[in-house]
């Protein structure tokens, strides 16, 4: 823990700049430059900009990571020509989409058609302000940050259905309905699985939850909740095997059939943002966030920004598992998906809550700390 916080960096930067600016222009008119409120406001803006940039770059890197990893699963290479090993391929793709003409189908509803992708993207980005990527690398210690993140996360079906309906396309409508049904169905097991974590940790604050995992990571006692959470996240992220809202075999592109250019890029980006958020949440809730087990050699855990580093490593590893699942499983059908959701996942989640309550009641959790090879 270096004590370096993102807000601290932003604040320091702004203070340094403004003080020097004031030093160059030492006139009382410019005294507002060193006003505390102005400094704070600008710092928040810079903080937000850094966060936005970091999350965007991370998302694009995530797409690259998926493409390369999926390539290896499929005995091919993935992107490899733009930049080293294709690192810049997605930037090139984004540029291409940005340059493309955005068009609207004649019958489509303009308001919904244009607002939905933007709102979807914004609602996904909002969560990044809440999630702590390391100590001090988030919007600070909100007492209910976990709950807030999940609430914002569950805005998505609304926007998806809005866009699906406004496109005036039969495939989009079917895709939108599937998507709404699926996301709402899987909210329930996700929340229940999170409740298990909350019971064990006793807090809704993500930072506290991570800190509680110093001794042992929560996937050890809460394996069942982890399975439920990951399955639910797969459905929420609309990834294979649960990607049937955009099942390209029957629904062309599902609820974003009619989108092209930048609006499509918004959807694409939001999907991967949500994938990144999902991986973040899995790491935060079950794999100890930015903490590392004690048996890891010291040099590996004591360098600047090591928390952030390990957090990202874990995130990408979790996402790699998602990619692995994508590479090896076919898609399920809507009715089967909902049946799995309501009739398998919800009971399992309830069971995991019972287990969590039991673990807390019999006070055997500290014993897990004695297993140094598994975590903590």
């Amino acid at each position: 823990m270096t004590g370096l916080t993102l807000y601290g960096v932003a604040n320091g930067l702004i203070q340094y700049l403004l003080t020097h600016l004031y030093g160059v222009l030492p006139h009382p008119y410019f005294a507002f430059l060193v006003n505390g409120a102005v400094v704070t406001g600008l710092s928040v803006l810079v903080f937000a900009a850094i966060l936005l940039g970091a999350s965007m770059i991370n998302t694009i890197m995530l797409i690259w990571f998926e493409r390369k990893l999926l390539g290896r699963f499929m005995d091919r290479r993935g992107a490899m020509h733009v930049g080293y090993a294709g690192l810049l391929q997605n930037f090139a793709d984004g540029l291409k989409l940005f340059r493309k003409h955005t068009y609207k189908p004649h019958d489509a509803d303009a308001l919904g058609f244009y607002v939905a992708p933007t709102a979807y993207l914004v609602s996904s980005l909002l969560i990044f302000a809440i999630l702590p990527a390391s100590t001090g690398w988030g919007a600070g210690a909100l007492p209910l940050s976990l709950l807030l993140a999940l609430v914002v996360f569950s805005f998505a079906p609304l926007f998806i259905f809005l866009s699906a309906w406004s496109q005036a396309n039969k495939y989009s409508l079917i895709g939108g309905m599937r998507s709404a049904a699926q996301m709402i169905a899987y909210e329930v097991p996700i929340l229940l699985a999170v409740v298990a974590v909350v019971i064990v940790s006793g807090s809704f604050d993500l930072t506290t939850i991570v800190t509680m995992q110093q001794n042992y990571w929560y996937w050890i006692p809460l394996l069942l909740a982890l399975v439920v959470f990951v399955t639910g996240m797969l459905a929420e992220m609309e990834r294979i095997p649960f990607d049937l809202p955009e099942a390209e075999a029957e629904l062309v592109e599902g609820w974003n059939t009619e989108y092209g250019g930048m609006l499509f890029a918004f959807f694409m980006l939001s999907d991967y943002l949500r994938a990144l958020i999902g991986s973040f949440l899995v790491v935060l809730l079950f794999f100890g966030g930015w903490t590392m087990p004690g048996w890891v050699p010291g040099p590996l855990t004591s360098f600047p920004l090591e928390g952030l580093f390990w957090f990202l490593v874990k995130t990408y590893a979790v996402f790699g598992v998602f990619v692995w699942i994508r590479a090896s499983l076919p898609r399920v059908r809507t009715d089967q998906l909902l049946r799995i959701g309501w009739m398998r996942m919800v009971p399992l989640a309830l069971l995991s809550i019972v287990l969590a309550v039991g673990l807390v009641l019999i006070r055997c959790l500290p014993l897990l700390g004695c297993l140094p090879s598994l975590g903590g």
Partner: protein
Amino acid sequence: MSPPETEAERSNSSVLWVAKPLATAARQFVKSLWRPSTIVYPFERLEDPKFRTEVRVAAGKPIGVGAVWDNYRGVHALNIDTCISCNLCAFSCPDLCIDMVTVPGGDPKHPKKCPQIDYGKCSYCGFCSDACPEGCLTMTTRYELSVTKRAEMVYAPERLHEVYKTKLPMSPIRVERPQNEDSILLDAPLCIGCNACARDCPTKCITMLDIPKPAAKPGEKIPKRIWKEPVVNDSDCVRCGTCISVCPKECLFWGTHR
């Protein structure tokens, strides 16, 4: 009709759920980690020597199927020097993409004609190179043809000759004369001995032989003609039919020697 709700459980794989496919994909991942089996096309090519012999990598290990290009039917190569302008390639083309065009050199009155191929139409069936009696039109392993203008798809004989000069691997050359085939026969009374067939014969297998001028009988007029008749050397004839088409009196035809 109602949807069938009962699903026949055909195997016991539900026990394993998804473990088997996950393991299979993981195995593939490990195998292709070092070297996936794709060939990085513009930089590596299937016709590279290393792929021609042994190493066709599939899933990280060579299994030894070299790509063989012996019979490959790509862009044609034309040896202008040996082309005899027999037209057989143009006749045999199902897509009518071969035109016989004049090439420099040769008799100015009867210029030499060689095939020009429109690759916009060509289907690479190889009938033309099969038909070529001299083995001068063959097919190479070249397969990249992208151009920006449609006119560039038309390969003039000189350009085909350039392909020939690149010495790409070519399909096996067969120089053969057809056997068991109809011959060129002469309807002698119609012939005027004009030498057109012998002049235009690509293989020069027609010779004009003198025939005796008949003695004039009383009351009969001797036709005015050159007293020569073409004789076809069947072992050299490629059966291209040029003589039939140039004959002004239509006195040559296909048939079998009795």
